[in-house]
């Protein structure tokens, strides 16, 4: 998991730099959400994923290379990877619409006698959209095998979560008759275990589930979002101090799970990927 998190961090940093130079048109940073993304993705097996647009670390877990992942932000395509073999469908930039697609996909597979678990990623902002409520309700009444993974990073661009909703997203899912969990997702192992349990619930009960992954936003909404103008310095400093990649790396080094040699090899791979991005987009 640390390997994927370090790769995601490296790709995210390089893409941000490339956007700053004008080589990318836009980049949506996942900085701070790597533990939530990698931990959840590792728990999904080969389930089809309907992502939102910030699940770069999930894409990396699914074997999508940095150039393919970045191509759409350089204006070359609307989807730089082949969705079917990676079982990672195209990014969806209109909020929450893909939640209904995921439910329909699960129902469709069930009707074709090839039931499978379908996963949809949304953010906290997307839960305000009507389609999210419609999808939760539809999944519940259809007993659709859909695992809803909601990354709550505390912000819908500049609107903090506490101004978006009075109950938690997990509580809201319960209101639709959906089993849910709400976890602090800054540790990939905790996240992995919770998502594994949720996926198991979906598969054994043949009904939907939702996991609210409470995570950390370190960057802006996009590279064009001057988030320091609306975030309090203390809140931002706390987010940066809570960096899940740093924390997990330190923990694995301290426990002796990884050593300098391993880290050097991973860092070399990350450097290669960054170099590849430079060649592909900055020339």
């Amino acid at each position, binding site marked *: 998991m640390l390997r994927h998190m370090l790769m995601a961090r490296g790709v995210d940093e390089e893409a941000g730099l490339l956007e700053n130079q004008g080589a990318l048109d836009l980049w949506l940073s996942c900085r701070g959400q790597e533990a939530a993304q990698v931990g959840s993705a590792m728990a999904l097996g080969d389930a089809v994923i309907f992502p939102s647009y910030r699940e770069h670390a999930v894409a990396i877990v699914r074997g999508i290379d940095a150039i393919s992942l970045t191509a759409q932000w350089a204006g070359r*395509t*609307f*989807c730089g990877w*082949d*969705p*079917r073999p990676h079982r990672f*469908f*195209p990014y*969806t930039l*209109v909020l929450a*619409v893909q*939640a*209904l*697609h*995921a*439910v*329909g*996909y*699960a*129902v*469709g*597979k069930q*009707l*074709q006698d090839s039931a499978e678990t379908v996963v949809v990623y949304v953010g906290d902002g997307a839960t305000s959209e*009507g*389609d999210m409520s*419609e*999808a939760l*309700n*539809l999944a519940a*009444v259809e007993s659709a095998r859909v695992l809803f993974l909601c990354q709550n990073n505390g912000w819908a661009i500049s609107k903090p979560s506490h101004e978006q909703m009075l109950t938690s997203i997990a509580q809201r899912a319960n209101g639709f008759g959906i089993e849910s969990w709400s976890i602090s997702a800054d540790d990939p192992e905790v996240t992995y275990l919770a998502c594994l349990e949720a996926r198991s619930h979906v598969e054994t009960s043949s009904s939907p589930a939702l996991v609210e992954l409470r995570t950390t936003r370190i960057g802006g909404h996009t590279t064009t979002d001057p988030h320091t103008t609306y975030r309090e310095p203390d809140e931002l400093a706390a987010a940066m101090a809570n960096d899940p990649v740093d924390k997990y790396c330190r923990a694995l080094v301290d426990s002796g799970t990884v050593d300098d040699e391993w880290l050097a090899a991973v860092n070399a791979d990350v450097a290669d990927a960054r170099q590849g991005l430079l060649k592909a987009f900055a020339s």
Partner: protein
Amino acid sequence: MIDAKPGSLAESLNGTLHDLMDSDESIVIVGQDVGRLGGVFRVTKGLLETFGPARVRDAILAESSIVGQAIGMSLSGLTPICEIQFEGFVYPAMNQIITQAAKMTTRWNGDIALNLVIRVPVGGGIRAVEHHSESNEAYFAHTPGLHVAYPSCPTDAAAMLKHSTKLGSPVIFFEPKRLYWKRRQQPRDPAEPVSPVSARIVRRGSDVTVVGFGAILEDVLAAAERVASTIDVEVVDLRWIAPLDVDTILESVGRTGRLLVVHEAVAFGGIGAEVVATVAEHGSHHLKAPMRRLGAPRRIYPPADYEKHYLVGIPDIVGAIEEMCA
């Protein structure tokens, strides 16, 4: 004269849906009240009994859910045929139709076939309440990535519905409510359309081309009959309003030198404007007279007591033809 074929539009569509579901297991029906009730217009009558609740799916009352789940079903390998109960209720599904269904194939770099039909009863003249009588086809025709079907008779509707399920691209399939139970039909030239998606010349003539589609085509044919002793009217049924069969229109105008477009929808920004603009760009050298459009005024569709005055009627069409050919 009455057409020999006795079926109404609703019966024709119902029979076609039975045939399609019988021959293609991937087809599922999704819509409000399509199962137990057989649809508010009974177009899906009997399907539940024959094909069961797994394939004939009474949807919850949420249009975005109907279309959104159908997109997912299509991605999973099925061919959903959705029913939206009335054209005035399609708007909650517009986001799914326009930002998702229409763009999905392009977003997938052309690697998928998105078989998806969205049936929409359309139009007025049936003394319906607010939101139940409108003609909103222009919104969809304007959107790249959508095919828009608008049949004017039962036999065409059957062929077009069959074609729609195999296009690999989402189709908005408009069904003129006024024709659902109508059995009489103006006589038509029996010539087949050049292709499944082309327009059709339903009456041959030499003095003026009148282009129409949907329920109002019956009024156009009646008007043509009324002036037949002095003016030889050619009538083109567009059948598909997007993509538009420009060739058939230009070929007809090339012979007649005059063009009138008639539709039930508001004229402003409507399909008529597109047809006239296309002929202005590509066929103005053929014209013997200024082109004209007939459509509804840009006013809210009125309560039923006033709809006769609001809609284009046969006398309006006759008047326009006579003025153009004077």
